[in-house]
């Protein structure tokens, strides 16, 4: 049985709980299930979230 460990952290925008995978990496993006903003994982121990930088005009692949 797979065990997915999730850590709940407060959304810096709306304050509601955001589930973040325990093995998330720095610079990963997670969405707030409540207000929908994109959040960037700034640190993982402890998990710290901030509003993710917006996609810039010259972003691409």
């Amino acid at each position, binding site marked *: 049985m797979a065990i997915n460990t999730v850590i709940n952290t407060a959304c810096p925008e709306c304050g509601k709980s955001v589930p973040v995978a325990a093995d998330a*990496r*720095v*610079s*990963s*993006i997670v969405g707030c299930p409540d207000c929908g903003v994109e959040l*960037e*994982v700034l640190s993982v121990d402890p998990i710290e979230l901030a509003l*993710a930088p917006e*996609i*810039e*005009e*010259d*972003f*691409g*692949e």
Partner: protein
Amino acid sequence: MIDGHDGRLAVLTSRVRLEENLIFTALERRRVPYLQVDERDLMAELRPAETRFRGVLNRIMSHTRSVYAARLFEAGGVTVFNSAHVTATCGDKILTTTALACAGVPTPRTIVALTPRAALEAIERIGYPAVVKPAVGSWGRLMAKVNDRDAAEALIEHKEALKSPIHTVFYVQEYIDKPGRDIRVAIIGDEVVAAIYRGSDHWITNTARGGKPEPCPLTDELVKLTRLASDAVGGGLLAVDLLERPDGELLVNEINHTMEFHGLVEATGIDLADRLVDYIEETLCE
């Protein structure tokens, strides 16, 4: 700083998406020493580097910063995947199509107009519907399908109002009435690895816009065109996007130098990250 990290592979990131996660996992599985370098922390003193990374995998999402970073690392004698030349070419549709056309690779008919004054004539020469794209950018953003002269005049006026030099250069293409899908092919060095169809009801077929990935057979023609396209821009770790005309003729549309490959992995089950790391290790060990 871009130096001071002797012996490790640098992975330059803007965000850690599924692709970067898979790449990190592949590196860790092989115990390849690497350092994730957030592009927002990058700076370089313009002097000869004393110690340096073993190589650089460039996953920066900003075209401007990606090209500068690649050039700075290359100036320090470090091999960058992809090279600055390839990144500069593939990140700019005008340079990509120019390289493809010079190499005789079939592409949609394209006219570049360097001013708004020339843009209407360019669109009229292509004929309606025409597709106008920004030279830089991905994911189908700011692409316009121009169905008539009224729409063309309005689009040109709106772009002029943006007061940005890049928006007053017009990349105009014929509209290809494709069969509800395009084709993405991954090529790593000389090896054509996998291909997918990206289907959509919308004229913009892109997995970032909801295009659904399905496996696509690697026909001889597809392999040949993909290799030609890759060679035309300098080669490396690339995703070549192709369109099909109604009669089946294949056209190379775009080439992506920081490929997003989650659709390829989802549809084919091929571990693209592993293949990328293979290629990087083999190249650095040569």
